[in-house]
Every structure is written in structure tokens, then in C-alpha cells.
């Protein structure tokens, strides 16, 4: 069964109680000259069709590494991977390259931050999109593929798509290149789309257009989206569920509203406190998270966040330094999981927020 979903085109009609993407206890390690890099440790999440999961974290938190594992972009010779990733019921960890190829671009697609680097500079934009279509529709003619490419460019809002399809990537503006890459990713109607910082390099007005486009396409095609970014504002507007990663682990996981309005893990709380908001008092000092992100070569003992955490004093003894907290339901129950020793973290954090406001 494990591979039939990939081989069989009818498997695209995915009907099951299980969410379309299930990542279970995923661990990714890279052996390097300096030692073993613990990029992702024990990560689990689920995404249903038509829903968006936002993954938030700093650089080096493992958010990109974990998504590249799902798309099968890690070199097996240089990666140690364990756990399970099921896409539409099919296990994809260590799937053979040929089967992975059939899955990638067809059921699962990915868009990247740097569209100029992701598009080939020597080939016309239309040809590149047509190639993505042809490789998954071997029976289609070149003309059909070309027409499909033009209609896709039209779909993502490129003016005069039949002419612009003959342009090279450098003739496109930044926003148009991002649109072209989205067109390429969506040309085979994937059920699952990974968007790795798709708007970070763009201006705010262009970013707004791209986010609108992604939501519109999600409504039309009913696909699942995993949205990776460090911009909490973008997450707030795009995501249904949010996963916060720190030091290669999930530290908080729940609905978008719960996580961004009542965070229960000091790291998420710190992130929210450290960004200047549009309606905050500009004379008030920002509250940065002290220190720097942890080393993945020698992760800290206990809770990965404890060296930067302001609340270790609220936990009895040296529990934070000794023991890794589990990802467990907080006071709101299973819809809001947190990895923190604080018993009632919401209460402690709101107290801290008031005291810093007053000081």
C-alpha cells in the first residue's frame, strides 16, 4: 500500500480520516567534520487538505530542514533521518529517488524564498513551467504543455501571459518571478504545497499580492499549505495552525489564535514582545530575547531555551537545566501544546507582561 498512492494517479482523490500530511517523530541529523548536527529532533505535526500550517522559528531552528525532508531534498549519503512522514497515506522517508520524483512536483510542490536562484537563467519562463508539466504528463504534447504554462501564468496574475512566457527570468520583476515560481509549483495541481519564506525578499505591497494569490489558489484547489516564515504578522494572516520551532524541536503547537494571543511558552512570548507593533507606544523600549540561538552541535541540556529564558526562576529547582520538558497540552487542552516546565505559563507570562509595561 505504501507506494501505491504515489504510483496510482487515482490516489490524488485522497479520501481518508487521516490528515493528508502526517509527520511523526521526525529526526534529521547531519554528520559534519565538527560533529553531529542535530537539525531536527522528534518533530510531529499534521496538515489537513485546505488548511494552512505556519511554521515559525529563527534561522537554524530546523524549519526548512524538516520541510526539505518531506519533499525528499536531503542527500541520503549525508543525512541521518528517522521517524515517519506520510503524504496521502504513503510513507516517503527513504523513498527511492524515482518514486520520490513522481511524488515531488505532482502531489507535493515547494516554493522558495529566492525566485531568481530557483528559476534557470538560460531557459524561458514558459519552457520551464511546461517542463514541470511534461515530466508528470508524459502523454501530453509540447504544445499542450506550453498552453498549460501560459494559462498558469495567467492564473497567477501575470499580464499578457502568452508574451511573458517567452521572457527569461531576469526580464521579470521580483514579484513576477515569485508568481512564475508559484505557477510552476501549481502546474500539476499538487495537494500539498511547501512555501519556504516565499515573501521574505519582497516589498510589502507585493507580499500582500502574493499572500492573496496563495489563499485564492488554496480556496480553488483545496490544497494543504505549509507556510514557513519568521514573520509573525504573515503567520497571523495566513495560518490556521501554528508550530513554533526552537533548536530543532517543536516548542509550541496549536491554533493560530491561541498561539499568537495567549502564548504559553516563554520563547513564543519573547518573540511577540520583541517585535515593534503598529499600535504600540514607540517610546517604550523593545524587550529583546537575551542571548543567541543554541548550537545544534552541542544542544543545551534540558530545555533548549533555558539559557535565554527569563522564567527559569519560576520553576522549582534546576528542572529546566536537567530535564527536557515534553510537548504537552496546556490549560486549554489538546488544541494548544507547549514544551515548558512552567505549570501555568499563561498566568506567569501575563504577569511578566504587566510588570514590564509598568517598569
Amino acid at each position, binding site marked *: 500500500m505504501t507506494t501505491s498512492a504515489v504510483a496510482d494517479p487515482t490516489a490524488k482523490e485522497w479520501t481518508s480520516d487521516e490528515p493528508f500530511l502526517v509527520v511523526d517523530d521526525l529526526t534529521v541529523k547531519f554528520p559534519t567534520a565538527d560533529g553531529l548536527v542535530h537539525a531536527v529532533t522528534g518533530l510531529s505535526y499534521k496538515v489537513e487538505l485546505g488548511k494552512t500550517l505556519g511554521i515559525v522559528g*529563527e534561522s537554524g531552528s530546523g524549519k526548512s530542514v524538516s520541510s526539505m525532508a518531506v519533499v525528499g531534498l536531503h542527500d541520503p549519503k549525508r543525512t541521518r533521518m528517522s521517524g515517519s512522514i506520510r503524504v496521502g497515506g504513503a510513507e516517503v522517508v527513504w523513498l527511492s529517488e524515482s518514486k520520490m520524483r513522481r511524488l515531488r512536483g505532482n502531489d507535493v510542490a515547494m516554493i522558495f524564498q529566492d525566485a531568481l536562484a530557483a528559476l534557470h537563467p538560460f531557459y524561458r519562463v514558459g519552457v520551464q513551467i511546461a517542463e514541470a508539466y511534461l515530466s508528470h504528463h508524459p502523454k501530453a504534447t509540447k504544445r499542450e504543455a506550453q498552453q498549460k504554462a501560459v494559462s498558469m501564468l495567467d492564473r497567477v496574475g501575470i499580464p499578457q501571459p502568452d508574451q511573458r512566457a517567452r521572457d527569461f527570468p531576469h526580464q521579470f520583476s521580483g514579484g513576477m518571478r515569485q508568481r512564475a515560481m508559484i505557477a510552476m509549483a501549481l502546474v500539476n495541481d499538487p495537494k500539498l504545497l511547501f512555501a519556504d519564506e516565499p515573501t521574505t525578499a519582497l516589498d*510589502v505591497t507585493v*507580499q*500582500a499580492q502574493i499572500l492573496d494569490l496563495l489563499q485564492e489558489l488554496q480556496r480553488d484547489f483545496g490544497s494543504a499549505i505549509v507556510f514557513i516564515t519568521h514573520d509573525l504578522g504573515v503567520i497571523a*494572516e495566513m495560518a490556521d495552525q501554528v508550530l513554533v520551532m526552537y533548536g530543532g524541536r517543536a516548542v509550541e503547537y496549536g491554533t493560530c489564535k491561541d498561539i499568537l494571543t495567549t502564548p504559553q511558552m516563554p520563547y513564543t512570548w*519573547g518573540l511577540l514582545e520583541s517585535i515593534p*507593533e*503598529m499600535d504600540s507606544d*514607540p517610546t517604550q523600549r523593545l524587550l*529583546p530575547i537575551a542571548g543567541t540561538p543554541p548550537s545544534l552541535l552541542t544542544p543545551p541540556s534540558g530545555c533548549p531555551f533555558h539559557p535565554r529564558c527569563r522564567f527559569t526562576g519560576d520553576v522549582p529547582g534546576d528542572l529546566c537545566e536537567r530535564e527536557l520538558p515534553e510537548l504537552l497540552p496546556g490549560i486549554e487542552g489538546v488544541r494548544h501544546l507547549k514544551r515548558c516546565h512552567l505549570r501555568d505559563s499563561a498566568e506567569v507570562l501575563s504577569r511578566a507582561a504587566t510588570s514590564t509595561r509598568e517598569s
Partner: protein
Amino acid sequence: MTETIASDRSTADPSSADGSPLLEVTDLVKYFPVKSSGVIRRVIGQVQAVDGVSFSVGRAESLGLVGESGCGKTTTGRVLTKLYEPTSGSMVFEGTDLAPLSAKEMLPIRKDVQMIFQDPYTSLNPRHTVGAIVGTPLQVHSVVPRNKVLSRVQELLELVGLNPEHYNRYPNEFSGGQRQRIGIARALALQPKLMIADEPVSALDVSIQAQVINLLQDLQKEFDIAFLFIAHDLSVVRHFCPRVAVMYLGKIVEIGDRESIYRNAHHPYTQALLSAIPDVSQAQVGGRRERIWLEGDVPSPINPPSGCRFRTRCWKAQDICAEQEPPLLQIGDNPGHQAACHFSEPYDSAIHDAAKITRAAASRAATESDEANAS
């Protein structure tokens, strides 16, 4: 320790009493020639990167310069430090116009105008130690005796929150946030009066951004440094700068104090820009915020639209916008708030909606007439 750096400042500033701004920029223009290919490289056009920009920065004040990529904000910063030669216009710094100065004449002034760069990975020489990077300006301008350079470098490192014992390390041994601190220490070494900060935090992680912003604010207060803060992140600019200028395609379209720009924007571009910022507090309601949809892309600065440069994407555009370039005019009775628009007014969603409907009707009529012609 900090006193030693601050002490020589008070005596070195005779012109501060007359109330004139530290930097007065008038009609600054920077064009880059576009050359044809081939053997004889004729000039076939001009990229109008900055086209008639005027603003002033007071002592110890921060002016934010915001706008989208390609609007000329970075070019403005680079012209001010004379990394580019201005095409025309004047930039008077403490009574001296910097525009006509030669590199040699510029040298003593460079002490007072320093720059912080965006990318902490490319703006530090990987083969120089931190001590050499921060110490070189001190030696070039001979502000401290040679044997005191090291101790001053250590003071500066401590000031920006780095371990002073790390002066003999190389940039690759530091994280992004720490590297940006090294760049700040280098800019601070000469105790500048004006700091041009070109996207100083946009390459940093969110939690580190706040550390660097706080550091810059502390330094500004302590040493009375004026900042020209160039950034595309409007919420960071709002936090840092009491005055903000918004640029579009080489021109300032609106300038004013923080409150006027963020609460009472009059230029349609400023309104669109503000509405596009994703907002964390949106999580409480869910879904997307209502926003102003701008059509198309920024036009090419080689051949900008006639009249108002924003008219090709503006929902208020009329014939007059193509014919006359709107001047920067004062808004209401607030002398500090100016906008360059023929129809400047606070944002009204009703007008915007009405304009959208008329536009849609017009384009529908156009396609129908096209079809009628074709048949």
C-alpha cells in the same frame, strides 16, 4: 568608560547654537547613465534613481526613509556619504555643501558622517581581525595615539555589548547579530554626528533585531547622534524615528512626524503601504486584513510616468495627475506634514471602493468595445 568617548564631543561643536539643522538636503538628484552595447558605448538613457529629494535632519534627530526596493532610498544614503557623486542638488552639512567636495576635501567630514550597512556578512573584511576593523578608522583619522588604539577598540566593543577580549578574533567567529554590532562599533569609532543606517536590522533574526534596535537607541541618546534610518520595515521605522519620509520612484511623496504619517496619511501610496503590513493582532480575528490593492508593478525609473509618478497605480488618478507633477504641500495646519498629491486627503474606503467599481466598469467597457471592433 563611556565618558571618555563622549567627553571630546561637547567642545567640538561650535555651530550647534544657531538652530540650523545638521543636514539640509535640497533638490538632490542622482541619475545613473544607461549605455548602449557595442564598441561606442553611447548614453541612451538615465536611471532616475533619486530625482529632486529635499529633507533635513536635525541634531540628534532620527529621520526614517521608507519605501519599496528601487525607490532610491539606499541611493540617497550612499550619495550623502559620497559613495556616489550627486548629479545635482546640494547637501549642506554643518554649513558646508558636500556635493562639490573632492575626495580629499571630504576626508575631514567623513569623520562626522558614518554608515552602518545592511549585510553584516559582506560589510566586514573576513581577513581582518575585529581589532583591525574597528581600529582602522581611528588610525586613518589619527584621533587617538597609536599606542592607545587597542584600548579604545576595547572600549568600543564593550559599548556595543561585545566581549572586549575578542578584539583579535575574525568576523567568521561571530553570529549575525554580533557582526552587526562590530559594524556599529566601527561606525561609532569616530564619534559621528550623523549616522546613515541602511537597513541595519533587516538581515537579522527577529529576537536579535530588538537587541540591535535598543542598542542603536541607547547610543543615540548617549552620544547625541542624528540618524538617517533607511528601512523597508514600517513598524521598525515607526519605533525608531519620530519623523518619517516616504519615497516612491526617486521622489519623496510624503514626509511628516510619526503620528501624521502612521495615523493620518494623506498620500494614497503611503495609505497603500500602511495597509499592506501584515499585523500580528490579526490573529484574534483570523483571516486577512482589509487592504488597498495596488495594480501592477513599480514603473521603470529609466522612463518614469509623466506628472505624478504614482498615477499609474493610483485609484484617484485623473487627467491632471499626468499633466502636472504635484508639489510637496503642507497638510492642514501642521507645518511638519507634507504630501505630494493633487487629491491628498485621509484614506476613505468609500472613495476607494467607488474608484474600483468605476475602473472595473471602464475596463469591462473597453474589452466589450474591443470585442465589438473585432467582430
